[in-house]
């Protein structure tokens, strides 16, 4: 739920206040960019998608009725832009420069950043890319962005039941796609 100050900022933005929209943009740009990155698998595409998302949001802010949270509205725009871009470019990020894959850090105190775990995430990213649009998008929103099913349903304009089914199906498929050695690499020590 938006605070009073956020609501006032939103109201001003909806009334055409450019500065107010700038405030909202700064509040949400990182999470929108993170979503765009997961959906596109490309740093450059993620920047483009994020930029386009906020441009479209700015032009259509007067259409936002405020019933849902602003971020779900922005997420929906981001999903639409990312889907269109992905369909147009038909490009899948190469393994070596996939920005989603965390960089291994030698000697890092955090075991999560070992090279082995990095390769696990690379395989996980590939597995996600192999899913259908609906399953991949839903899975990213549910498990990577960790949105509640209710919010995902709002973003995707479907029922929570559909969201749940997609998540379950995506889990099943990922489990079947990902080999045992990758699972071992992804396991937390």
């Amino acid at each position: 739920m938006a605070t009073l100050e956020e609501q006032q900022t939103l109201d001003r933005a909806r009334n055409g206040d450019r500065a107010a929209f700038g405030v909202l943009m700064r509040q949400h740009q990182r999470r929108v960019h993170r979503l765009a990155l997961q959906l596109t698998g490309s740093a450059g595409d993620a920047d483009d998608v994020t930029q386009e998302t906020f441009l479209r949001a700015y032009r259509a802010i007067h259409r936002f009725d405020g019933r849902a949270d602003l971020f779900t509205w922005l997420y929906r725009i981001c999903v639409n832009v990312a889907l269109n871009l992905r369909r147009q470019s038909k490009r899948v990020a190469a393994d070596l420069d996939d920005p989603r894959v965390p960089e291994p850090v030698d000697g890092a105190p955090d075991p999560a950043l070992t090279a082995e775990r990095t390769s696990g995430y690379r395989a996980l990213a590939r597995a996600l890319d192999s899913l259908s649009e609906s399953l991949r998008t839903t899975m990213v929103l549910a498990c990577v962005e960790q949105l509640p099913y209710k919010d995902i349903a709002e973003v995707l304009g479907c029922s929570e039941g559909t969201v749940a089914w997609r998540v379950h199906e995506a889990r099943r498929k990922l489990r079947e796609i990902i080999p045992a050695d990758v699972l071992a690499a992804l396991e937390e020590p």
Partner: protein
Amino acid sequence: MDDPLKLKIAASLDLPTDAAADPEVARALADDPEAREFARGLHTIESALRSWPAPTRSDRDWEAFTARLDAKLDEASRERAKARKGKKVSNEPDPAAIPVFTDATPTNPESKQAMSEPQENDADLENLAALTRTSTVPVGMPVASVRPSMASITDSVDDTSSGIVDIKKLAAIAREEAAKPAPAAVAKAPEAPAEKPVAKAAKTDDVMVTPARAATPAPTLDAPQRKGGSTLWGAIGGMALMAGAFAIYTNMQQGPSSDATNPAAPAAAEAPQPAAAPEAPSAPSVAAPAPAEAPAPAEAPAPVAAPAPPPQAEAEAAMAQRAVTDTAAATAESRHATNEPVPQARARAGASTPHSAREERAAPRPAAVEAPAAPVAAPAPTPAPRAAAAPAAPPAAGGARSVDDLMNRVAGANGAAQAAAPAPAAELPERPTRGQITSVLSGLNNAVRTCTAGQTGTAPVAIVISNDGSVSSANVSGQFAGSAAGECISGVVGRAHFPRFRANEVRITYPFVILPPR
């Protein structure tokens, strides 16, 4: 493993740690190493997704990105201003339109998610059932008609794909059933759920609740006002009647499900020896079906349907007849049952063991059986398998003209009845429904979580539930087996208490899936 099972296992990751998983999943996780490995892999993937490291970008890069975006927004702002001056109307499509995916999606994914949201459905049904318990049943409402309606409706609306129930259809069926002789229909009704596993019983419960709102002939209060008799008013009136009927039905079979602190108490109301379960062949009260099943209570696999013994049908028919005779009395009875003070009930029951007021409400129900007072009189704190029959009661036979009469007789004669009373066995379900099991086990949430002390994983628990609702045994397997956490979980589950049922016992394996907190 087949895909449906894999999907169910995948769905179980969404359940809170204390929620009841699908029985099939529970069995698979307990018995099938492949299933356990599959589940383990799912957990690994889920955990990896949730802890996916976010790519880092320096603040400087973010500032540059923000500056570029600001520039774009400023440009858009100027364009907007120009458009307004030129009074141009924007024809841009809504960027926040619902996303359309190009891949084929299931035509009815909600049907497939039914298994992933059973607790919700069950919770909704429980809430609905709670509403119906407070409904008033108009005079003349044939209570027995609820069961035959449920039997036929179950058959006709056994559709997992939509979950939509046609109220008008239910109303029509209820009206038809109301016109039929109740006994034969009632005799059939209990057998339907008896043949289905616990998971299916939940569906029966779904249907059982709905008909409570379905139309039966409009109550006399409303009907005269609408002699024109629109279907809508008939349906509303019928729903009110059915709600009241269901309230009575539910109250009559409501057992000591809330008594987690005194699980043995209800047991006292029932014969410790299954074979000694009092039977009143001549009594119109519902004879305990358990005696026929008693010989091997420990062997009863759960969830398995025990065949309803023939005498039960006859006894149930008689019971149905009595129930039909005085609906107003039944209403009063249900109120009486809910309002009866504990001391009064205790005095009548002659029980010495304190028990909850809720159990006391159940006490004065008509006894399912008559005879041997001896085994019945002795409170049996241990959850030994016993007949579902109620403790001895005076002949509830032919002289009973109302449910109130039955209750009073039982209350007066039942010296052994401690709490949970003996609702007539035929009124008890064959086994607890999935929703009931879920409801009880969900109450163990905090305790189980405390037992595992932050550890995650799956803790399958093999539970044996006696027909008095107590837990005979709770054995933890899997990663927590033999550990302090496992013993703790076993103890927690062992103190749970379920609603009473007819079968000797029910065996389930229930996996507590313990995930990291979100």
